[in-house]
């Protein structure tokens, strides 16, 4: 077992749906992760996830020298030392997890981003869904809500679809109506959900093309846990995605890496 070394740095990603936290040790080794639902109280979510992160690692707050916040709620992390956008953080986190990464697809609750990255994790270019939530995790949540199905079961049910319906709307709210219309016409829930996954995958592909898609592609964000979405994207891309257990945490990981950069820069300054 590797023994972790202080000083530690932490990254907290306050997303619209979930709040994630990552702890790194002095050598950028993963010291712990935590994840909770964000809810309506952003400050409380940030404090809670941080407390859970420290508890899981068996550390006190004084062991962490630098905390960076990212995600839409990053400015509400009162104990944070630095705020970085989720675009920079997902790029950095993805390249850290998979060094061959040159394109990142981050699919979260309210945003989907395509990011072209350099070998050092720096952002070359990015595109995001604009304003509306079509093509994001929210789209899937809406489908699950309409079909009265737990979000966790969505991928497994969709994967059994054989004749996917076409969800053509560009609006999440209208998509709910379109899904209901397919239900009324007797289509199976499996086929409707597969159609919803395909609609999102297709929109994501368009975003990826807008940044000049280059392999290897890493899929990050909460929706990267969805196996059906991974399969649909891979089908459209004609190649495999880099995805893994830590990819939902890529934003928080990137934030922790930026925190670590600051920490090291500070130490270098102190050392003259």
């Amino acid at each position: 077992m590797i023994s972790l070394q202080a000083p530690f740095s932490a990254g907290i990603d306050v997303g619209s749906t979930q709040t994630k936290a990552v702890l790194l040790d002095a050598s950028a080794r993963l010291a712990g992760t935590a994840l909770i639902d964000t809810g309506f109280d952003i400050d409380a979510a940030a404090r809670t996830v941080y407390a859970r992160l420290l508890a899981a690692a068996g550390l006190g707050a004084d062991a962490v020298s630098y905390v960076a916040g990212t995600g839409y709620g990053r400015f509400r992390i009162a104990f944070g030392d630095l705020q970085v956008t989720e675009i920079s953080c997902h790029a950095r986190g993805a390249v850290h997890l998979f060094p061959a990464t040159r394109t990142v697809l981050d699919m979260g609750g309210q945003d989907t981003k395509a990011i072209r990255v350099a070998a050092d994790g720096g952002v070359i270019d990015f595109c995001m869904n604009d304003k509306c939530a079509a093509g994001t995790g929210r789209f899937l949540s809406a489908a699950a809500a309409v079909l009265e199905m737990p979000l966790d079961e969505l991928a497994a049910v969709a994967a059994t679809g054989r004749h996917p319906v076409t969800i053509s709307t560009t609006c999440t709210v209208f998509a709910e109506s379109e899904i209901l219309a397919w239900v009324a016409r007797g289509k199976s829930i499996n086929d409707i959900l597969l159609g919803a996954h395909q609609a999102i995958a297709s929109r994501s592909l368009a975003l990826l093309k807008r940044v000049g898609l280059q392999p290897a592609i890493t899929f990050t964000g909460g929706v990267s846990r969805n196996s059906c979405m991974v399969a649909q994207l891979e089908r459209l891309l004609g190649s495999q995605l880099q995805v893994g257990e830590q990819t939902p945490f890529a934003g928080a990981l990137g934030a922790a890496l930026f925190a670590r950069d600051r920490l090291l820069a500070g130490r270098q300054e102190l050392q003259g």
Partner: protein
Amino acid sequence: MTFPAVRAKIEASSLLEDWSERLDLLAQQQLPAAYAFVMGSCAELLSAFEIPLFLPEINCLQTAVNGTAQGLLQHAEEQGYPSDICNYLKADVGMHLQGRRLPDKRLPAPCLAIATTACNTYIKWAEVWQRLYGMPLFVFDIPGSRNPARPSRPGDPGFAADLAYVMEQVRSLISLCERITGRRLETDRLSHALHCTNQMGDAFRQMLAMNQQGPVCFDAVRQGGAYLGVFNVYRGSEAGVRYFRNALEELQQIRQRCLEEPPSEAPFRLLFAGLPCYPLYSSFIRMFSTQGGLFVRSTYLQFASGGANLEYRFDTGRPVESFAEGLLLTTREAMDSMFLAGDRLLEAQAACRADGVVFHGVKSCRTVSTGLADARLALLSRSSVPTLLLESDMMDRRLISPAQMQNRIDAFFETLRLRRKGNAP
């Protein structure tokens, strides 16, 4: 920031206010004006006939900046105009449907409308006026570039054929103006107006060149907007010449100050591509300036300046022919700027040593936004310069999300800072 450029901004506001007051006075006296679009406005020709000029696009953008556009858009939509068409057009229609009245001014009715084929919407828009008022509509069919890599120039056989085609149309417009006013064209007046435009253009080009290589003397979106407004409204006039003479002098002073006292930290030199976000005009520019970004150049100063950026100077000794030639070159330039922007952006980025390129697509203008997507991909394929793509609108607040816009801008500056410093943001 190092460049207040205050005098030119105040003078521009004052001149545009005078223009509004003159239009209001015409409306009170129930006198008409010619309605024309910025590209190919024929300002010099109209001034030779003493026909007052109204530029609806500029009026519309003013309503966006002063916050009155939303009501006009709503009014037009209530009459059945759809939500996804050009919002300049829709605000203008809203204004006409409510009796050409705005909170602070009235506008004259049209006696003539001039459009060009630079934009299909212009033609449909002008047809709305024709339907409402029954006045003559004149549409210039301007030939575009057939070879984007090498557009024809004066002296080329292809250009001669294009010029003959445009010349015939200019003659027709002159005949129409003669019928409307009941007087013959005075070529001396036209020559004088063209001479004024030449002088304005000379100053404007020097101003643009000043920003290109040296310190940033003016923000091409903020101050550039003021310069554009005056250039289009006061084109071919003594007042326009005075304005640009003063503006150039002010910039020369600013440049001198910048050279003597350079800023402690060099700004990020940005190239802007697209139309400004008028409903959030000041805050949009501030989102960049507060992070140390300054727009050193803007494609808007090319395609919306009526060709003022070109080296072309009217030959006042043969005013009608030269006017036709200028109309062909400048309108074609505007079309090329929108449709063939890929190569141009690469050249512009290198010429002005831009650290990043900001693309602002406006949802209600397909003409600008379509070309923008292609230009961005062309630039990306040939350059590693960071780019930022923003999508909002030039008129409709409902299509703009300031918080999301700010987030994207923050990410863009993180990239710029990382590149400059080679470490964390």
